[in-house]
């Protein structure tokens, strides 16, 4: 075993503000992409449960394309296509958020679809039988029950999303991973820096994992 490498974390005292700033950017990407992808997922998931094949067709196509292509490809593709094809000059940050949201929106749609489908048919019928309209049935009876069943997959989704925010580094968003590389090439302390930022990802993801597991157990115990 090679043992003559000198681990050195002393740079932290000088560089921590840069990493905190990058961490804040990572967290912004996480929060915005999570909000957008859940919103996309909600609407697409409802459409996927339509009993009209025509209504299902386009949502289905969206889900399959965005779920089954590599995320890094989508990020770079959005980076190119938004300005070139659509004349949208967004900064890299928003391009990254949009790419992540479309990809994770496809996952969220599948989660919503399954959650809505998992609510027993009798619930829908009972709600209809007291005179509720279709949208009242969905909002007041089906979705509140579906959401509890989705706690666990959503927990996992947020955890994966937090990890995947690192991929927007390829288009130059100055989030944690991107900054770790630029600072690393300056200090030649890449391993130490990776360990440091790994801890920052874990600070978010460990509580997320435990909270979602706890909520899942609390609400789906019977």
């Amino acid at each position: 075993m090679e043992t003559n490498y000198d681990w050195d974390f002393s740079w932290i005292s000088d560089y921590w503000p840069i990493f905190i700033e990058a961490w804040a950017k990572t967290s912004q990407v996480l929060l915005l992409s999570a909000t957008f992808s859940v919103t996309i997922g909600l609407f697409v998931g409802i459409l996927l449960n339509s009993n009209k094949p025509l209504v299902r067709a386009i949502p289905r196509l969206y889900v399959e394309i965005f779920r089954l292509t590599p995320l890094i490809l989508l990020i770079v593709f959005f980076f190119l296509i938004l300005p070139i094809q659509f004349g949208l000059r967004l900064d890299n940050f928003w391009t990254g958020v949009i790419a992540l949201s479309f990809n994770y929106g496809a996952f969220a749609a599948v989660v919503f679809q399954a959650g809505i489908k998992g609510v027993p048919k009798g619930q829908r019928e009972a709600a209809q039988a007291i005179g509720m309209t279709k949208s009242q049935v969905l909002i007041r009876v089906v979705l509140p029950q579906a959401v509890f069943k989705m706690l666990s997959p959503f927990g996992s989704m947020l955890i994966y999303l937090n990890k995947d925010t690192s991929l927007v580094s390829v288009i130059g968003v100055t989030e944690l991973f991107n900054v770790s590389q630029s600072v690393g090439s300056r200090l030649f302390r890449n391993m130490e820096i990776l360990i440091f930022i790994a801890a920052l990802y874990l600070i978010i993801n460990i509580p997320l994992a435990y909270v979602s597991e706890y909520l899942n157990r609390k609400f789906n115990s019977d």
Partner: protein
Amino acid sequence: MESAVEIIDLKKSFGAHEVLRGAKLKVNSGEVLVVIGPSGSGKSTMLRCINLLEKPTSGSIKIFGQEINDKNTDLPSLRQKVGMVFQSFNLFPHKTVLENVMEGPRTVLKLSKPDAAEIAMNLLMKVGVEDHHAKKPSQISGGQQQRVAIARALALNPKLMLFDEPTSALDPELRAEVLDVMRGLAADGMTMLVVTHEMEFARKVADQLAFIDDGVIVETGLPEITLKSPKSERLKLFLKTVKWGEDQ
């Protein structure tokens, strides 16, 4: 007498399988009609066509004189007039007992929270589960759940109540409490259409008995007479197979 329900030549197919093959039935206002028949005879399907949970393939259904088998029928307003109680209760598990009963008045009738709560509480008293109003459905017995489900349907002040095998999912000792509530409703003059296997209830409470088999109403009449001296061979055969009520 004004007819509450009038079904003429009702047909319903699921795919190639024809479940209702021209059913005909009339329920007068204020009357209790009990439908009996073997499983798979189409009795639940017929009931579910009346509030359009199932869309009939063809035929006519008139509710208080108004044709409802029509694509222009306003489903929410039809279903306000026609309450339904299901075999498996179908209470909303994420809401308390009181909230379950308040749901219709709040969401459909747009009443204020205090008004809806007052209606709901009175109905819970009527069906005898007011002590459990703050519990979730999973915390009360099946018999209590079904009584709450009856209260939930009554909260919209319906003119007609449909019961789809309301006691079939219950242990025998819990059935009586549900049947008592139904008996009380009948005594109050509620128009009721009840699909059930409870022969005692049919005999004592029904004004009319209808026997359905293989998608058609084979025989209707006064329960006492129809049960004692059935005209059709099919009803004779069916009566030999049924278990009579546990409260005999």
